[in-house]
C-alpha cells in the first residue's frame, strides 16, 4: 500500500506516523492521493486555459480574415486560401491539444473514483468488523470512517461536475461564433465554477486529520 502514497513528500512529521497499518494506512494513503490528484488537476487546468485561449484567438483571426476577404481583397485569392488552411491546421492542433488535456482530466477523475471505491471498501470492512455503528475509537484524531467516505464523495462530486463542464467546453469552444459566449467559456475554464472555496478547506481538513499536516 505504501507505493500508493503518490508523490507527497515524506517529511519528518508524517514519517513519524508511518507506523499506521490497516484501515488507517489505507485512508492516509488515499488522502495523500487526493492531495496529489487535486494539485495535478490545477496544473492541467492551467495548461488547458492557455490552449483554450489560443483556440479562441485563432478563431478570431480567422473570422477577421474572412471579413477582409469579403471586401475587395488586396491579397490574391491563393495567398488568402493558404493563410486560411494554415489557420485551420493550427486550430486543429490546438483542439487536439485541448482534447489531450481533457483526457488527462478524465484520467484524474477516474483515479478519484477508484479512491472513492477504496474508501467505500474500508467503510464496508469496518461495518463487517465492528457492526453498523463502526469502531469506537477514531482511527486518527476525531473523524469516524463515515466522515472520510462522505468527504471523498463530496470531492468526487465536485470534480466530476467540473470535468463535465470542461468536456462541454471542449466540444463547443471552436464552433462558437459569439465573442461573449467565447468569453464565458474561457472564464468558466479559468474560474472553475464548480470547485468552490470549500473544496480547499475540505482537502486541508483531510490532510490535518490524517496527520499529513502537523496540528
Amino acid at each position, binding site marked *: 500500500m505504501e507505493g500508493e502514497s503518490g508523490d507527497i513528500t515524506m517529511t519528518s512529521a508524517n514519517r513519524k506516523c508511518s507506523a499506521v497499518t490497516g484501515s488507517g494506512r489505507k485512508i492516509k494513503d488515499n488522502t495523500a492521493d487526493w492531495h496529489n490528484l487535486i494539485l495535478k488537476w490545477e496544473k492541467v487546468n492551467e495548461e488547458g486555459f492557455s490552449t483554450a485561449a489560443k483556440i479562441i484567438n485563432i478563431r478570431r483571426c480567422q473570422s477577421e480574415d474572412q471579413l477582409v476577404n469579403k471586401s475587395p481583397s488586396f491579397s490574391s485569392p491563393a495567398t488568402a486560401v493558404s493563410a486560411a488552411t494554415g489557420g485551420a491546421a493550427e486550430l486543429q492542433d490546438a483542439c487536439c491539444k485541448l482534447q489531450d488535456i481533457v483526457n488527462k482530466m478524465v484520467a484524474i477523475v477516474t483515479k478519484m473514483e477508484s479512491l472513492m471505491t477504496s474508501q467505500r471498501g474500508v467503510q464496508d470492512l469496518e461495518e463487517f468488523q465492528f457492526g453498523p455503528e463502526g469502531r469506537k475509537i477514531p482511527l486518527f484524531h476525531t473523524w469516524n470512517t463515515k466522515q472520510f467516505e462522505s468527504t471523498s464523495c463530496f470531492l468526487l462530486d465536485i470534480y466530476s461536475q467540473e470535468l*463535465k463542464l470542461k468536456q462541454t467546453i471542449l466540444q463547443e469552444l471552436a464552433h462558437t461564433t459569439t465573442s461573449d*459566449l467565447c468569453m464565458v467559456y474561457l472564464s468558466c475554464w479559468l474560474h472553475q465554477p464548480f470547485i468552490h472555496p470549500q473544496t480547499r478547506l475540505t482537502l486541508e481538513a483531510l490532510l490535518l486529520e490524517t496527520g499529513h499536516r502537523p496540528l
Partner: protein
Amino acid sequence: MSKPASSALHQALRKSFQTLENNHKVWKDVLDECSPLIVSLGNLAEQSRALSNVQLSNTPLRIFPDLEERLRFKLLQATDTVLGKLNEKMSSLQSVRDTFSNQVSAVSQLYEQNTSSLDLLTVTERSATFPSVADMLEWLQDAERHFRQQFLRRKTLLQLLTADNLSLLESAPERWKSLESPSAEENIADTLCKVSFFMEAQ
C-alpha cells in the same frame, strides 16, 4: 548671516532629498505593481459583462442549471481579492506620502524658526553646483504636493469601485492610466538631478 542655522538647514534639506529619492523609487515600484492588478480588474469586469450578455439557457451550457450563479460568485470573489490587493498597495502609497510629508514639514518648520537669522541673500544665493535654499524648499513642496494629489486621486478612484458596478470596473484601467502625470514625475527626476552635487557635498 548665521552659519549654524544655514548649515542645519542644509543638512535637513539633504536628508529630505535623500528621503525623496528613496520614496520616489518605492512609489514608482508600487504603482508598477498596481498596473497588472488594475488590468485584471478590467478583465474580470469584461468577463462579468459577457456572462450577463449571454443567455446560458440558449447555449450548450444549459445542462448546468446553477452555472451562472456559480460563475458569478467566482468572478465576484476574484474581483474582491484584486480589490483587496489594490487596497494594500494604497496603504504603501499612503505611508510613502506620510513619510515624505513629515520630512518636508520638518524642513519648513526649521526654516521658519530660523527666518530671523537667514536673510534674503542667504536663502536665494546659489552657485553653479548648489541651488538656492528657496528653490530647494519649493521643489520639496512641489514633490510633496504631487504625492498628496496622486494618492488622493487614486484612492478616490479605488473607493468608487465595487464588485457589482461593472461599467466603473470596466473603465477602471483607463481612468487609472489617465491619472498618470508624467510631467510631475519628470520634475521629481529633474529635481534629484539638480541637487545631486549638493547631496554629494556632505
